[in-house]
């Protein structure tokens, strides 16, 4: 064919171009070995001044801030020197998140809801980071930051009501499970569209600065979603306006089945994205709760003093599937989780507290039992309000409310249609079940 021979026929000695398609190191059945990952030494990095110029601290985008060492002690300038009481609270919050995830995952398998997402192995990136912020700082989470809500004391029963889309669901059964919204807890409505919360967080923090307020904003995104344009818009606006905002990138290595290489991890770190914008960048051991706290606190102090935004990469590992709809055994090695060089965040903080004589295995066991009991009690309480698909939990007219502040004529007409259909589809539903007009 003439077309095939155009290049070769020219007699060119130019090499044929080759497309690189990234491939993770390990696939199902492979033995994982992470010895190529340089995690550095806990306590080895200095802690730069919070007002440092980004260019003067560029190394922090390529190294790893770590506090907890293999000896279970806290090391170096980044040690936030938290009281044992605060560390026990942190440990409890993480354990409660894990217990909650376990039970909600099981509930989905039992058919109580349609969908759930665990954050196993990543608890520190939301709990410890959340605890480093003030309670009135505004957070714009992605879908895997349930740890912030729990750290802020949001009632478990309200989380479960939302997950079940039951009659006590504050979001009226409109949102996919775990897409919480909690204005009273300064927790922004979770979208589910990826990375959209980043420019929104920047905008909120710009508004706070416009008003001369003192509150800052923080937002979370997965490493995979940093490929979205929204991420780059957010970085641009954050630096252009020196916005008091923290952009947290949770690098858990996997975006459903796509490894971090598809977001650029083969070439550089995610923290290094900050440098091109002239933003402070920190790369942090995401499974080290003390390092996570210290980094978030550093960035919060920086933002609060008008010294600028920070991009923090939390280097961690998604220990379980993306969601209840995902089976990671189909695309990655089951050995990865055990071989992950940075361990488990709950185990590491527990071992630290034990090492400094502030905790013991007996108290840990009792705490785990307490967490499981709290979740069980909240689940039972929530189930009194119904589970997904059992009963018509919300009056049909609520489906049409909040599209606009006021109901326009076309939605009034459609609401009447829905109510008429109810008589045909569910003639036995009684208004007291919540199925009234």
């Amino acid at each position, binding site marked *: 064919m003439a077309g095939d021979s155009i290049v070769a026929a020219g007699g060119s000695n130019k090499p044929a171009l080759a497309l690189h398609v990234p491939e993770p190191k390990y696939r199902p059945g492979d033995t994982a070995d992470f010895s190529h990952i340089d995690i550095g030494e806990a306590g080895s990095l200095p802690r730069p001044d919070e007002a440092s110029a980004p260019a003067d601290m560029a190394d922090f985008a390529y190294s790893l801030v770590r506090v907890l060492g293999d000896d279970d002690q806290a090391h170096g300038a980044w040690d936030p020197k938290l009281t044992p009481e605060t560390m026990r609270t942190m440990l409890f919050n993480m354990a409660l998140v894990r217990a909650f995830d376990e039970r909600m995952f099981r509930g989905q398998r039992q058919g109580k809801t349609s969908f759930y997402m665990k954050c196993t192995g990543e608890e520190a990136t939301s709990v410890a980071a959340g605890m480093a912020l003030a309670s009135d700082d505004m957070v714009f989470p992605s879908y895997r930051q349930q740890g912030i809500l729990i750290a802020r004391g949001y009632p478990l029963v309200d989380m479960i009501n939302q997950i079940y889309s039951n009659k006590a669901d504050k979001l009226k059964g409109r949102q996919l499970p775990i897409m919480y919204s909690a204005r009273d807890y300064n927790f922004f*409505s979770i979208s589910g569209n990826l990375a*959209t919360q980043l420019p*929104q967080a920047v*905008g*909120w923090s710009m508004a706070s600065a416009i*008003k001369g307020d003192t509150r800052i904003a923080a937002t979370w995104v997965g490493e995979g979603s940093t490929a979205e344009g929204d991420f780059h818009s*957010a970085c641009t606006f954050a630096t252009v306006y020196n916005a008091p905002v923290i952009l947290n990138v949770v690098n858990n290595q996997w975006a459903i089945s796509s490894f971090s290489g598809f977001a650029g991890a083969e070439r550089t770190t995610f923290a290094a994205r900050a440098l091109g914008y002239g933003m402070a960048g920190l790369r942090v051991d995401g499974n080290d709760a003390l390092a996570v706290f210290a980094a978030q606190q550093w960035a919060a102090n920086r933002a609060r003093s008008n010294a600028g935004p920070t991009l923090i990469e939390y280097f961690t590992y998604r220990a379980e599937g993306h969601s209840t709809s995902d089976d990671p055994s189909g695309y990655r090695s089951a050995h990865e989780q055990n071989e992950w060089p940075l361990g488990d965040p709950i185990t590491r903080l527990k071992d630290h507290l034990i090492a400094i004589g502030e905790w013991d295995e007996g108290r840990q066991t009792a705490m785990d039992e307490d967490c499981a009991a709290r979740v069980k009690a909240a689940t039972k309480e929530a189930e009194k309000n119904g589970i997904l698909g059992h009963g018509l939990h919300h009056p049909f007219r609520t489906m049409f409310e909040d*599209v606009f*502040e006021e109901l*326009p004529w076309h939605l009034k007409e459609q609401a009447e249609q829905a109510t008429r259909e109810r008589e045909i589809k569910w003639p036995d539903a009684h208004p007291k079940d919540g199925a009234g007009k």
Partner: protein
Amino acid sequence: MSDTRAKVAPAIVGESAERRLNMIDAINDALDIMLDRDPDVIVMGEDVGYFGGVFRATAGLQEKHGKTRVFDTPISECGIIGVAVGMGAYGLRPVPEIQFADYIYPGLDQLVSEAARLRYRSAGEFIAPMTVRSPFGGGIFGGQTHSQSPEAMFTHVAGLKTVIPATPYDAKGLLIAAIEDNDPVIFFEPKRIYNGPFTGYYDKPVEPWKKHQDSVVPEGYYRIPLGKARHVTQGDALTVLAYGTMVHVAQAVCENKGIKADILDLRTLVPLDIEAIEASVEKTGRCLIVHEATRTSGFGAELSALVTERCFYHLEAPVERVTGFDTPYPHSLEWAYFPGPVRIGEAIDKIMSE
């Protein structure tokens, strides 16, 4: 250094000694008033700050209201709309400008998936009370990237309001109402009639707004409620549904043909003034829909369906649509594309012959 910023044009005093403004100055007046009245209003967009906007709609506002109330933004429509959502969540009432409607698409996800649904998905915990101003429509030799009319895309999205003024008086009153509205509003400004009520006869000189009755723009605050159409002319021969530039084009054609038409300027596409449409079509029994946007799945299709569904037994003739062609907006051939007097006249003849 000399100050090169253009000042807001002084009001033109017409024969009646009433204040007459073109559409740009009416919009500027509305923004100025809202910046004064509500400390939560902020205006932002590409070139809107020091320079005052490429169409001068924000001229003088930064100087008067300060750099943190009126400011330039990066060239990032995604970012502009995205930060406006966050500002709304904080409690501000942002009025972002997208320099041309043709450039709104990078911000589409933030409008369609975020601003439009925020009240709903959060059950009212958070709202996005923003007004996105954007010049739209063609007839200015803008080529495919400065001429589009994408209003139908936004009317298709649950949770967005779409407003299009056709006169300076309406532009001010509708913009104030849009800014005060607690829902996200797409406010498309027909740039062809910024400086005068273009009637579609592109080879004739354009008349300035000062000769038009609706260029009388009172000082101070007033609002025109969203969702209420305006009767441009009263008549029994046929109903014309139009908005923006096409209101003036359709009116000129009807006058030239000596047709007593009931012309409705819809002003707001969502929410739509269905009562005014029904009352008019029931009176005339004939309906012509005119828009500049492309035809297929244009807003005219929705209007045609509504009129047919709701007024079928009053109709004496099939509903007709006059629209732009289903092509990109061509540069040198824009007057071949534009749904001008010939296309409208032909449609009127067809409707009236039934």
